C-alpha cells in the first residue's frame, strides 16, 4: 500500500546529497513531496518529463537533469509516475 511508496521516498531522502523528493501522477497531481520539493510544481515537473519524452519517441523515458553550481534536479518518468529528486552538489 501507500506505506511502501512512503518508505521508498524516505529511503531516497536519506541518500547522500538528496534534499527533496517529489512524486506526481500522470495528471501532474502531487502524490508525495518531501524536503525542499514544493508540491505546487508537480505539474511543471510532469510536463517537463512529458516534453522530454517527445524529443525521441520510442526510445524510453529519459532522465532529465537540471543543474547549477549548488544544486541539481533530476526528473524521471516511469509508467506514468514522475519522480523528481533535488540534490545538492557534493
Amino acid at each position, binding site marked *: 500500500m501507500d506505506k511502501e511508496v512512503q518508505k521508498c521516498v524516505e529511503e531516497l531522502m536519506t541518500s547522500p546529497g538528496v534534499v527533496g523528493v517529489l512524486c506526481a501522477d500522470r495528471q501532474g497531481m502531487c502524490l508525495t513531496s518531501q524536503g525542499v520539493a514544493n508540491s505546487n510544481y508537480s505539474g511543471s515537473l*510532469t510536463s517537463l518529463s512529458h516534453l522530454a519524452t517527445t524529443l525521441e519517441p520510442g526510445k524510453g523515458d529519459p532522465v532529465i537533469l537540471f543543474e547549477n553550481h549548488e544544486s541539481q534536479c533530476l526528473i524521471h518518468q516511469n509508467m506514468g509516475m514522475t519522480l523528481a529528486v533535488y540534490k545538492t552538489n557534493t
Partner: protein
Amino acid sequence: MEELRKYVACILQRVDGLLAIIITDRDGVPLVKVALDSAPEMALRPSYLSTFSAMATDQAGKLGVGKNNKIISIYSNYQVIQMNKSPLTISLIASKTANTGQLVNLENDLLVVVNDLASSVVD
C-alpha cells in the same frame, strides 16, 4: 481592464490543453472570460458555470471535511476545475489530457486578478 484581460490571456497560454479561463460571480455572470475557439461552448454558459458557485461548492462544504475550495470534474473529453474565491469563482476549462497539476497551480497566478476584481467590481 484590457490589460487585466491580456494578463489572463497570457496565463491561458501557459498550460497546454487549457481552453478557457472564466472568472464569474456566484450566478455565473462573467467578469473576465478568455477562451480559445476550441473551447466547448456548453461549458462557457452561465447555467453550467453557476452550478458550481451557487450549489456544488456549498453542498460539498457540508460533507464534514471543512470548507470546499475547489472541484475538479473530469469528463470523457474535457476537465473543468472550479475554484471557490467567494464572492467570485474561477473556472478553468481544459482538454482531458491537460496537466491537472499545472492547472491547479495557476490558482496562484490568478489570485491577484480575483482579488482586484472582487475589490473593484463587487459591492
